[in-house]
């Protein structure tokens, strides 16, 4: 069996990790793969770190959560601290290079720890709002779980109503996706 991919995405409430998880799994589903996505949630409506657990596979997926991920993406200092528990020596750990004072907290034993310039790229080249799409691009670039095309379709189906009103937005999102795929190649 082709071993599936397990991804844990974590960030602050507004950083859009749940949207990334959703679009990724929608894209995988559209490709005929099996996908399972479960958000973490607690009693607070806002304030906690938001984590998304994503699995994509060719076969039916087993338990919805997992002990350790193939890829962990952490987008804030708290997210870094929260997600090291999902790492082992097989894990690829991404975090944004904009996050300060987390050197101490980065996973010690994981396969690779990669600082992504996602915030920077989004801010400088595009718009801070599409930061999460850059991240998604990076994940896709690193894993190839979904094709760029299907990711675009999923973006379209999720944000299409916004794209209608503002076609520039479509451009910007697609660009963000591409740039994400590129930067991950650069830094790895």
């Amino acid at each position, binding site marked *: 069996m082709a071993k599936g991919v397990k991804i844990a995405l974590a960030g602050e409430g507004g950083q859009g990790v749940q949207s990334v998880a959703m679009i990724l799994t929608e894209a995988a589903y559209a490709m005929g793969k099996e996908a399972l996505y479960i958000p973490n949630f607690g*009693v*607070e*409506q*806002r*304030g906690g770190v938001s984590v998304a657990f994503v699995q994509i596979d060719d076969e039916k997926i087993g338990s919805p959560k997992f002990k350790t991920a193939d890829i962990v993406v952490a987008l804030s200092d708290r997210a870094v601290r929260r997600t090291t528990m999902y790492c082992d020596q097989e894990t690829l750990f991404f975090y944004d290079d904009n996050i300060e004072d987390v050197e101490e907290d980065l996973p010690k034993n994981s396969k690779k720890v990669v600082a992504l310039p996602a915030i920077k790229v989004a801010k400088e080249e595009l718009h801070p709002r599409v930061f999460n799409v850059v991240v998604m691009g990076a994940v896709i670039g690193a894993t190839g779980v979904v094709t760029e095309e299907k990711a675009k379709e999923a973006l379209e189906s999720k944000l299409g109503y916004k794209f209608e009103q503002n076609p520039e937005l479509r451009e910007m999102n697609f660009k963000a996706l591409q740039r994400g795929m590129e930067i991950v190649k650069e830094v790895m």
Partner: protein
Amino acid sequence: MSVQPQMPKSWRSETKPHKFCPGCGHPLILKALGEVIDELNIADRTVFGCDIGCSLLAWDFFNVDTIQTHHGRTTPVIVGLRRANENVIGIAYMGDGGGYAIGSQHLVNSAARDEKVFVLLANNTQYGMTGGQMAPTTLPGQKTETSPYGRDTELTGPPVQGPEMVAAISGENAYVARGTVGNVRQLKKFIKKAIQNVMEGRGFAFVEALSLCPTNWRTNAEDTWKFVEKDMATYFKVGEIKVPGEKKEG
């Protein structure tokens, strides 16, 4: 020590920033409450009970003994405690769902029995913690997760008038008022009189505070204030409703 935030002394700074959302009304109510606890100097004998609802996020909020109970059950826990120890100043803090829906039998019967406890209720017109469902207090036409097409009063009645109900069921020694986070100074005055009513063993005390829930209202700061000060004010009249042996302010 450098300049520090003007938190009430009874707030526990170790647990700040607190767990409420940005712009939430709960902490505004709890600020008024904290200041009253400070002013009356009763932190040592106050027991603060918080419900399930966003009020539970205050379980470690105060430098005051705190019991986080079940949804709707804070009133009986505090009543039971106060019955067992009359020295305690018991405060039951809850949301509109906890007080007017699932815990309404406790609210009306505690009021009816004239329990010497203070029930403080945050009315944010919906169920905050569970993500914004309709509550008894939801305004006509207001969209919530379980009234997605707007509350239809034909089907679900008008917004509940809680303090008015409590006033109708309680005896003459009860203190009943409705305040708002739109007027924190007045709210604080009501809270103080309420606590004094139970401190002096006079009778039951109830204050509803109109509160804010920008998260579930999906409002920005401007609309948040507008909702509480315009929309809610249309249905919920702020003021004192029952004051033992005194003229009401309203």
